[in-house]
C-alpha cells in the first residue's frame, strides 16, 4: 500500500557560525563557559543598546552561499521576528525575512540509482541564536544567556527531497560543505547544527499534497531519517484510514522512536516581522563577493570528481577520502611520494583510519608523515620488504616517525630474495619434516602452507613470499 505514496520533504537547518564573537556584540561565542559569563548589555537586551553587525558573519554567510551556487543579494535586510519567550531577551529575534543574504542555490546528492540529484536551496539567512533555559528541581527555571546572539545561518531547502534517505544524504553533504568552509563546528550534540523537517505526502504521480507537518527536536542525522520515516508512515496510515492530517508541529522523541504533537499554544505565532530599524541593510559589492569566492577551498563535490579521475579511485574510496579536507590533503601528499594511488588509498582507509578511530584522533594528529607513508608503500611495491613486514614498519613509525627505509635497514627487515640462501633453508626444513613432505606428494597440497610458515618463522617473515612458494612447490614435488 505504502508504495503508492511518496513523501515531499523540506529541511531547515540552523548552523551556528564559528566566529569568535557574537553577531551583534563583542561577547565570546565559546561553548561550555559557565552560564551567563559570555554576556553584555547588548546581548542581554538592556534598555538603549544597539546591535552592530559582525562582518565575519556576513563573510561566512556569503561563503556558504557561494558554495551552494546561490545568488548573493547585494542588498540584504535584517528583520525582527517578534515573540515572547524567556530565552529571548529583547522579545524579538533579529533575523532576515524579505531579502535574505542568499537565495536560489543547490546541493547535489546521489540518488539510489546512482544519478546526481540537485536539492534546491531556497534561501540562506543570517540571524541570532536565543539563550538556553535550564529547568531544575520542581518549578525552577534558569536562563543561560551565553548563547544569546551567537550567529546562525538558516539554510532552507525547496521541498525537493523524496525520501528520508535523501534527507540524510542531503544533510551529510551539507555538513561536509560547512566543514570544508570551516564556518561551523557541525556538532549536533552541542547544538551547533540543528535541523527541522517539513513533510507532506502525495500519491505518486499526483500534484496534490496532503496537509504538511513539521518535526522538531531532531538531534542527529539518523534521527532526522527515522523521524521522517515515522511521520511518512503515520501520514499514510491516517489517509488510508480516511482520517485527516492535522497541520501541526511534532517533537521527535528519540528514546521512544516516535513524534508527538507540540502543545497548540506554543506554535500559534504571528511573528509580526518588520525591517530592523536599528541596522542598515548589509550592502555587498561584487568585488567583495569575488574576493570571498577566491578564498573558497576546493569544494567536496569537485574534490570527489577529481579524486576519481586523477587517482583512479572507486566512488567508495573517494567518498571516504574527501570526508575531511585534512584527510584528503594527507592522501594527496602521500600520492606525491608514491604513484601507487590505489595502494595509498587502501592504506589510508584500512590502516590509517583504523589507527585514528582506535586512538580517537583526527588526521592532523596522526604521527606518521605522508611522505613516510608514501615511501613505505614504495618499499613494498619494489619488493624491498614484504607487505607483512610493511605493517610492522608502519607500527614502528607510530612511535617514531622515521624514514621507513632507515627502519628497514636498522632492524634488518630487508626481504630475503637471495635464491641460494632460501634454497639451503628450504632443503633443511623439508629434510626435518619428511612426513609432511610425503603428505604433499600424496596429493595433500595444503601442506605447503605449513612449510611457508616454517620458512617465515625462520626468516622472521622477511622471506619473499612469492619466491618461497615457487621454491617449495618445485622442491616438494621433486625430493624423495
Amino acid at each position, binding site marked *: 500500500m505504502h508504495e503508492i505514496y511518496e513523501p515531499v520533504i523540506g529541511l531547515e537547518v540552523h548552523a551556528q557560525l564559528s566566529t569568535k564573537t557574537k553577531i551583534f556584540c563583542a561577547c565570546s561565542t565559546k561553548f561550555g563557559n559557565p552560564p551567563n559569563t559570555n554576556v553584555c*548589555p547588548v546581548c*542581554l*537586551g*538592556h*534598555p*538603549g*543598546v*544597539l*546591535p*552592530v*553587525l559582525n562582518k565575519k558573519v556576513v563573510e561566512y554567510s556569503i561563503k556558504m552561499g557561494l558554495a551552494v551556487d546561490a545568488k548573493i543579494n547585494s542588498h540584504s535586510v535584517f528583520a*525582527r521576528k*517578534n515573540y*515572547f519567550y*524567556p530565552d529571548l*531577551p*529583547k*522579545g*524579538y529575534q533579529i533575523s532576515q525575512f524579505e531579502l535574505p543574504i542568499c537565495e536560489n542555490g543547490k546541493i547535489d546528492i546521489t540518488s539510489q540509482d546512482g544519478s546526481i540529484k540537485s536539492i534546491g536551496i531556497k534561501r540562506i539567512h543570517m540571524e541570532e541564536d536565543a539563550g538556553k533555559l535550564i529547568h531544575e528541581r520542581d518549578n525552577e527555571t534558569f*536562563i543561560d544567556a551565553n548563547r544569546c546572539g551567537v550567529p546562525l545561518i538558516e539554510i532552507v531547502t525547496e521541498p525537493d527531497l523524496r525520501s528520508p534517505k535523501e534527507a540524510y544524504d542531503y544533510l551529510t553533504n551539507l555538513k561536509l560543505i560547512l566543514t570544508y568552509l570551516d564556518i561551523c563546528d557541525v556538532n549536533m550534540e552541542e547544538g551547533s547544527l540543528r535541523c527541522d523537517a517539513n513533510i507532506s505526502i502525495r500519491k505518486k504521480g499526483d500534484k496534490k499534497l496532503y496537509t504538511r507537518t513539521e518535526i522538531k527536536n531532531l538531534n542527529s542525522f539518523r534521527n532526522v531519517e527515522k523521524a521522517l520515516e515515522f511521520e511518512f508512515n503515520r501520514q499514510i496510515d491516517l489517509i488510508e484510514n480516511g482520517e485527516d492530517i492535522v497541520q501541526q508541529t511534532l517533537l521527535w522523541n528519540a528514546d521512544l522512536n516516535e513524534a508527538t504533537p507540540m502543545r497548540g499554544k506554543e506554535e500559534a505565532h*504571528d511573528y*509580526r*516581522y*518588520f525591517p530592523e*530599524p*536599528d*541596522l*542598515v541593510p548589509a550592502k555587498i559589492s561584487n568585488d567583495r563577493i569575488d574576493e570571498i569566492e577566491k578564498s573558497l577551498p576546493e569544494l567536496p563535490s569537485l574534490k570527489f570528481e577529481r579524486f576519481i579521475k586523477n587517482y583512479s579511485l572507486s566512488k567508495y574510496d573517494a567518498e571516504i577520502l574527501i570526508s575531511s579536507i585534512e584527510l584528503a590533503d594527507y592522501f594527496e601528499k602521500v600520492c606525491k611520494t608514491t604513484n601507487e594511488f590505489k595502494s595509498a588509498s587502501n592504506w589510508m582507509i584500512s590502516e590509517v583510519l583504523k589507527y585514528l578511530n582506535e586512538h580517537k584522533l583526527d588526521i592532523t594528529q596522526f604521527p606518521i608523515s605522508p611522505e613516510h607513508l608514501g615511501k613505505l608503500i614504495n618499499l613494498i611495491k619494489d619488493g624491498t620488504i614484504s607487505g607483512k613486514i610493511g605493517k610492522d614498519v608502519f607500527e614502528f613509525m607510530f612511535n617514531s616517525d622515521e624514514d621507513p627505509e632507515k627502519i628497514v635497514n636498522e632492524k634488518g627487515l630487508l626481504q630475503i630474495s637471495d635464491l641460494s640462501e632460501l634454497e639451503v633453508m628450504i632443503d633443511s626444513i623439508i629434510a626435518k619434516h619428511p612426513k609432511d613432505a610425503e603428505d604433499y606428494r600424496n596429493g595433500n597440497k595444503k601442506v605447503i602452507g605449513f612449510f611457508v610458515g616454517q620458512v617465515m618463522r625462520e626468516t622472521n617473515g622477511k622471506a619473499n613470499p612469492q619466491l618461497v612458494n615457487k621454491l617449495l612447490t618445485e622442491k616438494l614435488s621433486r625430493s624423495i
Partner: protein
Amino acid sequence: MYKNHSEKVQKIISGILDLKEHTKDLLSSIEKNSDLNAFNSISKDVVEKAASVAEKIKSGKHGKLAGMTVAVKDVISVKNEPLTCSSEILKNFKPLYDATVVEKLLEEDAIIIGKTNCDEFAMGSSNENSAFGPVLNPVNKNRVPGGSSGGSAVAVAAGLCDASLGTDTGGSIRQPAAFVGIYGLKPTYGLVSRFGLTAYASSFDSIGPFANNLDDLSAILEVISGEDKKDSTSSGKKFTRESLENLDASKLKIGYPKEFFGKGIQSEVKENFLKVIQKLKSAGIEISEVSLPHNEYSIAAYYILTTAEASSNLARYDGVRYGVRDLNSTELKEMYEQTRSIGFGKEVKRRIMLGTYVLSSGYYDAYYKKAQKVRRLIKNDFDNVFDNFDLILSPTTPTTAFKLGEKTNDPLQMYLADVYTTSANLAGIPGLNIPIGFDNDNLPIGMQLMSNQFCEDKIISFAKILENEMNLS
C-alpha cells in the same frame, strides 16, 4: 548671572563665580522647585564633581563644556543612575553603561545634574503620562510643559540647570521648548548617536539639546554629534561651530508651508508667526510660501510606524531579567501579562496595542507598508522644497501650552499637538524651536526652523540672526 556658558567659564576663571557653591545653590533651587516635578532623580556626587571640574578649569586643562550643568532626560542611560523612563516597570532599574552622548558630555567636563521627568517611554505630548506625575509649566503652573521631554525643557526654563538633553520622536523636544519658551533642537537622524537611548521608535528617535541661548545649544551639539561605532544608523557626520562662521545666513532662502495654517491653529500663534515673516521680508530676507502636500498624512503615518516599532522595542520589559516583575503569578504567560499590565501606563499600552495590530499578518500591507510609502512621499515633499530653499519656517505647535488635564481623555486631540513636528521625524531632517513671543495669556509661542539633512549650521546661523537682530526672544 551669566548669559551663556563661555561667560560662566570666564566668571569661574576670574573667581567671580564659585562653581561648587553655584552648583549647591542649583541643587537647593531644584529642591525649592520640586513642585514642578522636573526631575526624577539627582545624580550622586554632583557637588564633588563640580569641585573637581572647578579645579580643572583653574588648571586650564578643561573640556569644552566644563562646568556646564546638564540635565538628562530619563530615557537616556547614565551609568549607575536610575533609568526609569518614567515608568513603573523600570522604577528600580540602574544601567551598567553610559549612553554615548553622556560619555561625550562627561569627556568635555559637563556636570550631569540629574535625570528629568518625561512622558513614559517618551510617549506623549504633555508630560502627563509619567508614572511619577505630570511636570508643571514654570510659565504657568496650570499648564502642561509639553512632552515628552517636559522635564528637560522645564529644568532649563526654570533655571534649574544650564542646558539639558531631550529626545524627539515626533516633536518631543521642539514642542515642549515652544511651550516653555526656550530653544530646543531635534538634530538630523543619524547625527547624534542613539546608543544608550531607550528606544521608543528607533527610526524616528533623535537626541537633542535644550538651552536658553544658541551658543550653548551649538556647543552641546558639537560635542554630542559625530560617528559612533556602537550605532549602525550613525551617519558619521559631525556638527562643528566652525561651520557657522563661513555662513552668510542673510542670503539663505526661506520657505513657509501653506498647509500649516489651516483649521486648529490658534489665532495668536498664526499672527505672531506672520509678524515674523513680515519682519524678515522687510529685513530683505528672501522668503516665500512653499507646499508640503502630504503633510496632512504625517500624523497618521507617524502613529502607525512609531507604534509598530514601539510594540517591538518595548517587548523586552517582560519582568524576566530586570525591572519590575509581578510575583503573584504562577505561570509564565500570566507573569508576562501581569507584569506588563501593572508596569505600563495607559498611553504606552495603547501604543503597544496599536503597533501590534498594524504589524499583524493580514494588516501589515494595509498599514505598515502603506505608512512607509507615505513616509517616502513626505520625504519627497521636503526634498522638492529643499531643491530651491534652504530653510522651512513654520509654527512649532498649533497652540500654546494647554491646560493640565485638558486633553488627557482625548488621545486624538493630544496627537494633533504634534501636527507640525512629526513630519521632520518622518523625513529624518532637523528642526529647531525658536521662541518668538507670547499669546494673550502670556504663554510662549514657538517657531520652527527646518532644513535639509545635516544642515544644522544653516538653521543655527539663521536663528542667530533672529536672536541678535530681530530681537525676537
